[in-house]
């Protein structure tokens, strides 16, 4: 009987296989020579499919984008007057040249010859002025779309090639905010059919499923080697790995070490960093975490390297404060080992604070970020050694944003905090007291004073002193154990063998313009 059942199944499958093969091969004809039957699927020379883990924002208008995942993809489509490089520098993009006045308040940009939008229109000074004014707009008490643009006094086109931006006061990190996309002025379909000046142009989107880009042959710079790039959404990481193995995907970023290990020979796994600060973030306003000794005890109880090894297979980089190494200029490596694991010291500190037998701690973790969940599990074990009885509470992302981030109704949480722009301010302003995004309720008068001073120094254009102050701010966070700092997570990118040229950036983007079949 059993054999008959099996035979029945196999016969059915075989019939289906025979009848289905026709469909399969016709599919391969229509997708440009990607054979479906071969033993080792090789990507067509100029088309690749990239797996991403979530859908993009509803609006693809880059000025309105809020999610990092959307910026990551659309980096290929848009450019500002300047654009970031993999080394963390800024180079001219839509502008070919820029000058800053001696007092740091007047920025003069000369537009690059022959830059056109994806719809064929040449970029004019009007487009540039409009794009910047749109993001600086602070009417009716709204906060401007680009926060740093609140420093702008005026934007003017002085001739057909030149745009002059005048600031109220100098701001040494201002240039980094001019990576803001330049968009055509009179174009109202930006949300659904975005048009920019980047190396790839937007072709189509199927909500919840995929986004198709194509090489922009009118690009001013070096044209990409790839002709077609399709981003396909896989909410399930396991399904993403299966799709890599089956040949449906050619490139995926942000894999876990376990997933990367499953891939085998057909892939090259590149190891970069995620450019974020992963920490056990502590709500500094609730008991017992409002006591410096308790927070320091937690820092002494934790062994960062063990977290990195156990939860991330050793791919992360240890951190000691709210800055990651890609900020080469500001990153202060001397605070990385501010606390090294010392259980006796931790116990003494706890006893001094009135908790000789430890206490109960809830760690709220967003369940959709496996690295954070894994990290929290290691932390629970480490904290046990000093009598802290930690318990993990898994919540979905939406709950995390509302309860932890917005309402600050939590004890501690493991997440990664990144920078929206390549400025030290983007990392450090968060911890000034009373700031809207200070979700750990850190309140330290010395920190506030240092940050204020940093802004003044930045206004005066004194870069060396700014670096010095930013380092002091990092040290302040470490000394006061604002959080239990852990690591900059490793970023594993799987690239199908035969493709190369993928580059990591110090910000959260996925640049495909350099990828080519090697």
């Amino acid at each position, binding site marked *: *009987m*059993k054999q*008959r*059942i099996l035979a*029945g199944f196999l016969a*059915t499958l075989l019939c*289906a*296989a025979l009848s*289905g093969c026709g*469909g*399969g091969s*016709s*599919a391969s004809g*229509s*997708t440009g020579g990607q054979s*479906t*039957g*071969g*033993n080792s*699927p090789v990507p067509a020379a100029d088309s690749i*499919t990239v*797996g991403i883990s*979530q*859908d993009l924002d*509803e609006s693809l208008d880059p000025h309105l984008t*809020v*999610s990092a995942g959307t910026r990551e993809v659309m980096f290929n489509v848009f450019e500002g007057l300047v654009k970031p490089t993999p080394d963390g520098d800024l180079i001219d993009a839509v502008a070919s040249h820029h000058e800053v006045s001696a007092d740091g308040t007047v920025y003069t940009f000369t537009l690059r010859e022959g830059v056109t939008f994806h719809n064929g229109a040449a970029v004019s000074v009007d487009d540039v002025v409009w794009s910047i004014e749109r993001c600086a707009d602070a009417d009716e008490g709204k906060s401007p779309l680009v926060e740093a643009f609140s420093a702008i006094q005026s934007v003017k086109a002085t001739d057909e090639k030149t745009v002059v931006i005048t600031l109220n006061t100098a701001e040494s990190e201002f240039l980094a905010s001019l990576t803001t996309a330049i968009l055509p002025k009179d174009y109202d379909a930006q949300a659904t059919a975005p048009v920019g000046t980047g190396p790839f142009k937007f072709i189509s989107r*199927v*909500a*919840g*499923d995929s986004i198709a880009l194509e090489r922009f042959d009118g690009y001013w710079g070096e044209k990409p080697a790839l002709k077609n790039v399709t981003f*396909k959404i*896989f*909410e*399930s990481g*396991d*399904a*993403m790995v*299966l*799709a890599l*193995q*089956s*040949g*449906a*995907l050619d490139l995926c970023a942000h894999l876990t070490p376990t997933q990367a290990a499953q891939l085998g020979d057909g892939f090259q796994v590149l190891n970069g960093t995620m450019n974020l600060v992963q920490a056990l973030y502590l709500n500094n306003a609730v008991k017992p975490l409002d006591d410096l000794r308790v927070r320091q005890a937690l820092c002494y109880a934790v062994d960062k390297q063990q977290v990195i090894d156990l939860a991330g297979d050793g791919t992360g980089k240890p951190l000691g404060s709210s800055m990651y190494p890609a900020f080469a200029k500001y990153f202060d490596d001397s605070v990385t080992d501010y606390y090294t694991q010392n259980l006796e010291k931790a116990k003494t500190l706890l006893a001094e604070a009135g908790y000789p037998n430890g206490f109960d701690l809830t760690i709220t973790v967003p369940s*959709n970020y496996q690295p954070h969940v894994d990290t929290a599990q290691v932390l629970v074990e480490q904290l046990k050694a000093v009598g802290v009885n930690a318990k993990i509470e898994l*919540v*979905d*992302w*939406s*709950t*995390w*944003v*509302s*309860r932890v*981030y*917005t*309402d600050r109704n939590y004890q501690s949480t493991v997440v990664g905090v990144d920078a929206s722009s390549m400025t030290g301010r983007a990392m450090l302003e968060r911890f000034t007291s009373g700031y*809207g*995004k200070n979700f750990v309720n850190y309140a330290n008068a010395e920190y506030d004073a240092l940050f204020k001073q940093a802004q003044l120094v930045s206004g005066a254009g004194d870069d060396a002193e700014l670096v010095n102050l930013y380092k002091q701010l990092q040290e302040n966070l470490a000394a006061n154990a604002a959080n239990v700092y852990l690591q900059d997570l490793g970023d594993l990118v799987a690239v199908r063998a035969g493709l190369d040229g993928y580059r990591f950036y110090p910000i959260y983007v996925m640049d495909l313009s350099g990828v080519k079949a090697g």
Partner: protein
Amino acid sequence: MKYAAKKLAALLATMLAVSFLAFAAFQVVAGDPATDRLGTEATPQRVAELRHEMGLDRPFLVQYGSWLGGFVTGDPGQSYSGGPVADLLSARLPVTLTLSLMAFALTLALALPLGLRSVRRGGRLEGAVNTVANQFLMALPPFFTGILLTWLFSILLHWFRHGAFPGFGADVGGSLWYLLFPAVALAIPRVAQTVRMLRSTVLAEMDKDYVRTAIARGNDRSGVLYRHVLKNSLVPVVTFLAQTMAEIVAGSIVVEQVFNLPGLGRLLLTSISGRDYPTVQAIVVILALWVVLANTAADLINRFIDPRLGGART
């Protein structure tokens, strides 16, 4: 007539209750669409503004009423994550519908002959093997079978390319071929259950007096089986198959994740985690309608098989 009216009323009441419960569930869980959209850009002030803009600051019953009003008049509203809900659904409904129907057809095509065969050839050893195999297959969760099928047919044999569902718009044949594998994953435990159900119902019926009498009067066993027993065993089996339809739909939510199919199930999960109420509401109502319709169909078929059922009620 009275029967039809009663059925319709029950159907509407069910849909109303389901949609209300789904709506109410979101009032209980933490998180809301405004904070989800703003993500880490959220500040209490911006959240409050957006909530007002989205109408989320109105009382619960008012929100439900306005949703219901729109839905009844054919406008399920705007998704919080992109475009009209109607567009999102119309793109995904065909995938889930085809997948479920394929899985159901496979279940029928395999379970009925296998079930009858297991009744007719009732050897002891075969019966035991059958039971073990049956228990094993019944316990296979579709997501696990899905991973096994992918490993075997996609990664080892390259019969299909996992993750590269072409879509009905691009390639109908290729899409059907791709859907066959998740359909098999969904069907396997259902086949096993239906075989067991059919077997036990038929065997119970075979023990009845009229069957013994019929055989004693010289009718051959298989004649009695097909002419009398089967007809009398069908009513519970048809009812069971309606449940099967419901479970296939539920299973497809998980299987769509495994095979990365752009269907209703995947949309439902992303909409729930994004607190996209209008989309979730519409999907829940559609799935509920589906299940209720399957049950109604089973009811009608049973009345046709056994007219006494209808007679008893009207």
